[in-house]
């Protein structure tokens, strides 16, 4: 199992737009929809990418299992911590069986596009994702939240670090919605630790302040 990898490959330069506007002060909320952010996202599970594509105001190019054979499934799975701690033998046995079945189908001439039906959600995938700034802020609001599932939360936190480094002014206030809004919008599902979460993301913002960063620095 490998750690997920996120890299901000490119983004629309906000300073070019501000420069073109002369002295006109355009609020960040008006500027963000005109900017886009393109990330290379690697070594996430297919279950994570399923969650990701629910964010519809975005563009995706994902590695295809029709074209790419999963040669060594065991080396290309994401294993949840709970499974590796509580039932590693059960999880490993299933991956082994899935791998055997997948390759058995291929050996009997079943095409990749059909053999992939037996691959588990744990299978690693890579994709290119582009979001406009407003959609990205919304994504971070939902997925940096303590209620988000651990893998997509890890992904969102890594993306946040990258966009804060690239555009510190625009994304200093980005993070889970309790950090953005100053209150938790999750109602009775709230984790109840709003102040703790807000303090954590404030400290992250302070730590990153002044760090111009690199848009191409991998997070792992």
């Amino acid at each position: 199992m490998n750690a997920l990898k996120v890299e901000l490959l490119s983004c629309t330069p906000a300073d070019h737009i501000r420069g073109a506007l002369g002295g006109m002060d355009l609020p960040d909320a008006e500027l963000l929809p005109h900017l886009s952010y393109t990330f290379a996202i690697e070594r996430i599970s297919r279950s994570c990418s399923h969650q990701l594509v629910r964010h519809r105001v975005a563009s995706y190019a994902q590695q295809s299992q029709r074209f790419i054979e999963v040669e060594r499934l065991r080396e290309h799975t994401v294993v949840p911590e709970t499974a590796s701690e509580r039932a590693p033998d059960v999880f490993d046995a299933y991956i082994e069986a899935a791998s055997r079945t997948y390759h058995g189908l291929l050996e009997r001439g079943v095409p990749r596009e059909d053999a992939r039906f037996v691959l588990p959600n744990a299978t690693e995938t890579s994709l290119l994702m582009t979001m406009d700034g407003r959609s990205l802020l919304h994504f971070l609001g939902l997925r940096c939240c303590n209620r988000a599932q651990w893998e997509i939360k890890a992904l969102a936190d890594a993306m946040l670090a990258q966009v804060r480094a690239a555009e510190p002014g625009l994304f200093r206030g980005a993070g889970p919605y309790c950090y953005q809004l100053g209150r938790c919008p999750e109602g009775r599902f709230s984790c109840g630790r709003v102040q703790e979460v807000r303090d954590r993301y404030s400290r992250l913002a302070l730590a990153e302040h002044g760090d111009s960063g690199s848009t191409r620095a991998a997070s792992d």
Partner: protein
Amino acid sequence: MRLKLVAHTPDVEALIATAMLTTTSGSGPSAIFRRLSRDPTRVARLVGRLEAQHGSILEHNRFCWILEAVEGEVLDILLKSRFFNFTRLDESRWMLSCNLRTAVECAQGSRDPFAEALVDSIRGAAPTIVSSMEA
């Protein structure tokens, strides 16, 4: 009506080529992008092979213009595609943005001064795409 490109995603065609190869390559998109960024000839060759119906890979970018136009002209543009994004700056100036797919589909759908200005403005950032459109 006057249209001036003020910003766009850097390395537009390298990103398009990265999106193309990401779906069919065993390498991750970061490695693909790094390789392609150093090889503009390969980027041009790949992007030149792009088939029109695979428009989604043209979406990994954003172009931003300042448009001088009256409200009726802005409405005409909005009616061409719902994917144009507008912010009003003052009585006659607007910030307009979209991705390359929207720009290309708009230009292919109509031959008016706006479409011509749109294509002219993206020629420098996406030369292979514009050449393919004009071929």
